[in-house]
């Protein structure tokens, strides 16, 4: 097919639209088994994906479901529905379009399974759920195309892995299914193509014209950035000027907490009362939707936001993107910049605002990377096995299956192409019996083999539980925040339970840009009142702290290695020059360590440039080694570029500390009992179907019936350390929060070249580290001591001491 039907093309030309070359190519490739389209925002990407569908359906002969559209966001599905309906309704085409998400009413969902529309717009989770019903074959009968939007975002998460596994099921039901992926600019299109295709099918890559290079610069401010911190409060006046000079500005932040603080300060300085909104993932949905709507109507001059605005919803006329804080990842930055200016072939405009002095260097590195089109690589590991376990359970819900068939099916997903049969069998065994070293209670196993060798659920009632636990999104323990005394309690958003636990009545914190006062906890809801009289204690959100990518770190090292820095502002180049004069600057092929006394403590600053998570892990491992060597470490703090350790003894012989094998051994021992592992375990155990996910409202009652997943972790660690879930947990932790691979990379990059610089006092580059937040004390018995001290004080204060004793 190379043409669109006449009525459609007339409709397009009546609006002055002409097909872009990439849209034409998507039409030409309509029958290819898999096609990946890479196009910038505003290039008519979605229409390109749907044109072959509309052309097919315009004939009016197709029965049943024709095209599935899958996006990571519910809102996106609703948006697309509106956009598609315009031509369909105006031309009176015989095409039924519906969406199906977690918000779709039960009755409609049931009807959709029996009588699906021609085009169904849905999310990965809703699709997985659809495949779990015994009537899936009927629902998907006749399906021709599946269009996956924002596939670059999905490919970085387990939601994407779940989606690709669900597609293997669809492909088995509909062998001629064509797959289309729509992606923003990525560094390695081939990787996404392999991810998308039914392995080993080929996948064509269609590249739209990327448009002109973005107009991106560092914001000029009269005041120099501070030495440390992430708030960028110094830049508020300059940012406000930019907002005034543009129509609509998006102000991106790396964390929700930073967005809250910045918004608060921006609002205080907003003397002209410009309409400015805030948007991040912890805000109440109603609040977020209000901001989204106001923005689409063009009523807002600026939105202070986080990654929650990253995906491709149509935001109307954004003409400036400001990134506060160094972009930790060039790809994300490029995608954010793409939000500015939706007119195809017009340059997007963006400003970078370093939050502190070192970030000036990082921002410069990012600028150079964007201009060179050098995007960071995404780590792509093998398909996660906890998601596979869930897929096996979902498959079992739909009816009996042969292990060999399912194995063949899942290995057609690119991420699982290298899965071995033994690995698959271990997952199947886990789903069936738990897969424990100790075989017990096998009469109750979850999946059992029938006489013909196929597998089925022992108890069909288990389907309900499996469907309820479907999905891979991990929610931290969040508590709703509501205004007290207002009718029903106006919802403001959510905070982590751990943060709420640190609050006492009268404490204040920021949420949704306002300072509120903590009143108390009632039925798992944080009750607050309005109160602006105190300096807020800042809400700590779980929003991942992104580590600077390997590529950006390498560019930073290259900048530092230069003889002089004409591209950097004077305040920063002077600082670096001073550092070189009194100490040294790291080179890419060596590990620089400074050692100096400060406030009666011996300090060591290790410039690893391995990213925040890895530097944090390095701090934990090194202090543990130092403890063993009697160097009496007292604490450490980590940033993206260095780890600063203080203690009673100086490091004089660093070589043995950085022995890779010793670090690896230390990691095994330290990791096992660590909270990071317990968190990773909880995620894996929930996805794999060992524990139920928190159901909304399910925690009010019967709390004593459920117990912490930490107990399961401790039990497995003691009695069954080689269990599948322990293996998955280690893999996850090493890849994610622990980021040990970056430490390995660092050791390999420097090839044991360690330069120790003993100094008489703190160096210019190390000084900001002393101001960093997030200092980690080395404890052990410390928690017990603190608890004891506090309980004694409480008993004394309350007058209870001696009463019961």
């Amino acid at each position, binding site marked *: 097919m190379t043409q669109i039907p006449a009525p459609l093309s007339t409709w397009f030309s009546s609006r002055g639209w002409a097909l872009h070359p990439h849209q034409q190519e998507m039409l030409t490739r309509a029958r290819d088994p898999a096609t990946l389209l890479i196009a910038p925002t505003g290039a008519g990407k979605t229409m390109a994906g749907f044109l072959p569908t509309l052309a097919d359906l315009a004939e009016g002969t197709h029965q049943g479901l024709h095209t599935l559209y899958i996006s990571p966001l519910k809102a996106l599905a609703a948006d697309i529905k509106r956009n598609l309906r315009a031509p369909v309704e105006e031309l009176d085409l015989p095409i039924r379009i519906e969406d199906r998400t977690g918000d779709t009413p039960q009755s409609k969902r049931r009807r959709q399974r029996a009588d699906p529309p021609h085009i169904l717009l849905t999310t990965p989770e809703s699709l997985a759920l659809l495949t779990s019903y015994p009537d899936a074959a009927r629902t998907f009968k006749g399906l021709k195309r599946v269009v996956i939007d924002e596939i670059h975002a999905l490919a970085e998460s387990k939601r994407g892995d779940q989606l690709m596994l669900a597609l293997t099921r669809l492909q088995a039901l509909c062998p001629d299914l064509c797959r289309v992926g729509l992606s923003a600019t990525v560094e390695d299109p081939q990787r996404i193509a392999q991810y998308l295709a039914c392995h080993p099918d080929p996948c064509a890559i269609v590249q739209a014209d990327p448009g002109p290079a973005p107009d991106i610069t560092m914001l000029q401010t009269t005041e120099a950035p501070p030495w440390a911190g992430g708030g960028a409060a110094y830049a508020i006046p300059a940012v406000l000027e930019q907002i005034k000079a543009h129509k609509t500005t998006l102000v991106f932040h790396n964390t929700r907490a930073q967005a809250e603080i910045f918004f608060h300060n921006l609002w205080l300085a907003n003397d002209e009362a410009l309409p400015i909104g805030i948007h991040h993932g912890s805000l109440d949905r109603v609040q977020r939707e209000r901001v989204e709507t106001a923005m689409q109507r063009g009523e807002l001059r600026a939105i202070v936001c986080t990654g929650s605005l990253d995906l491709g919803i149509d935001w109307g006329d954004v003409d400036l993107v400001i990134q506060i804080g160094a972009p930790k990842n060039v790809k994300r930055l490029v995608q954010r910049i793409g939000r500015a200016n939706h007119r195809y072939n017009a340059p997007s405009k963006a400003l970078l605002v370093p939050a502190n002095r070192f970030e000036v260097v990082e921002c410069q590195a990012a600028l150079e990377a964007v201009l060179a089109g050098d995007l960071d690589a995404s780590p792509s590991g093998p398909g996660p096995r906890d998601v596979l376990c869930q897929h096996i359970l979902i498959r079992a819900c739909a009816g009996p299956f042969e292990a060999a068939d399912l194995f063949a099916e899942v290995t057609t997903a690119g991420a699982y192409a290298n899965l071995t049969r033994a690995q698959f069998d271990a997952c199947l065994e886990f789903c069936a019996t738990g897969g424990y070293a100790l075989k*017990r209670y096998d009469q109750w196993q979850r999946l059992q083999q029938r006489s013909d060798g196929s597998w089925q659920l022992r108890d069909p009632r288990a389907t309900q539980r499996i469907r309820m636990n479907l999905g891979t999104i991990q929610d931290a323990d969040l508590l709703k925040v509501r205004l007290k005394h207002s009718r029903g309690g106006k919802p403001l958003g959510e905070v982590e339970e751990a943060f709420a636990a640190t609050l006492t009545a009268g404490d204040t914190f920021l949420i949704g840009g306002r300072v509120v006062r903590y009143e108390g906890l009632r039925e798992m809801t944080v009750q607050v009142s309005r109160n602006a009289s105190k300096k807020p204690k800042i809400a700590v959100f779980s929003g991942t702290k992104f580590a600077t990518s390997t590529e950006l770190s390498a560019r930073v090292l290259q900048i530092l290695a230069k003889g002089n820095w004409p591209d950097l502002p004077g305040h920063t180049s002077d600082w670096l020059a001073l550092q070189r004069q009194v100490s040294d600057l790291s080179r890419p092929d060596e590990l620089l360590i400074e050692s100096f006394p400060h406030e009666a403590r011996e300090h060591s600053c290790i410039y690893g440039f391995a990213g925040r998570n890895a530097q944090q892990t390095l701090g934990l491992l090194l202090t543990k080694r130092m403890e063993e060597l009697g160097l009496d470490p007292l604490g450490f703090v980590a940033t993206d570029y260095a780890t600063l350790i203080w203690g009673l003894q100086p490091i004089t012989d660093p070589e043995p500390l950085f022995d890779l094998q010793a670090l690896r051994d230390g990691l095994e021992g330290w990791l096992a009992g660590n909270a990071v592992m317990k968190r990773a375990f909880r995620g894996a155990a929930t996805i794999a179907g060992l524990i139920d996910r928190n159901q909304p409202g399910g925690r009010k009652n019967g709390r004593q019936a459920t*117990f912490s997943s930490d*107990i399961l972790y401790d039990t497995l660690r003691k009695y069954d350390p080689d269990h599948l879930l322990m293996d998955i947990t280690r893999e996850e932790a090493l890849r994610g929060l622990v980021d040990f691979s970056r430490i390995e990379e660092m050791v390999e990059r420097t090839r044991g070249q360690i330069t120790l610089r003993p100094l008489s006092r703190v160096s210019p580059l190390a000084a900001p580290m002393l101001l960093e937040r997030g200092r980690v004390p080395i404890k052990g018995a410390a928690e017990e001591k603190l608890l004891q001290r506090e309980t004694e004080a409480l008993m004394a204060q309350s007058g209870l001491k001696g009463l019961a004793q």
Partner: protein
Amino acid sequence: MNAHGGYGFSLAGATLTALPQGALWWQDQALLCVSDLHLGKSERHLRRGGAPLPPYEVEETLVRLEALLDSFAPQTVICLGDSFDDDLAATHLPPELKQRILDLTQARRWIWIEGNHDPAPTEFGGEHLPEFHLGTLVFRHIAQSQLQAQNEPQGEISGHYHPKAVLRGVSRPAFLLDQHRLILPAFGTYTGGLRSSDPVLSDLMQPKAIAILTGSQALAMPMPRQSRRG
């Protein structure tokens, strides 16, 4: 605080110790009391269509209980009810674990108090009672909301609620104690907890109640309560 890291107190004239492991020790009677072992939890969970939890919790609970029996050598042991996750879970225990429990109950006086999960007598020896009186103390599974007025002071020892208390963001199983009653934390490995701030517990315990956190040492603090409205 005493040698075992326990917290000593008196209830209705009896001198008792809340042990950091979550058990109660009555020195004068050489009596050890534990509550809510929930043995067989993973079996019952699976039987009722739940996921296959690691089947090691009975061993783990027994290991901890045996360690206490070794160090305190009690003449009497009271299990305060919900010792088994249900009656079938007791029946379905594998033979070697049944024998292990039997060995424990035969070596000393052993009292099983009936719980709401395990009302029927067990096949593991020992005595099976709805409640047990000794001196000024009464042992039962669920605390009575109104303690009857007695001529002599009487203290009630119970379990059932799996109380927990939170301090500095750390949540731990805890004993709850006031002038008339003590509620024990759950001893079983696979047990969650109910926060002391839950209305049920706040209503049950007197205003001056204390919570005794378990852990590496028993730590007493004023019982965290539901924050009042207003």
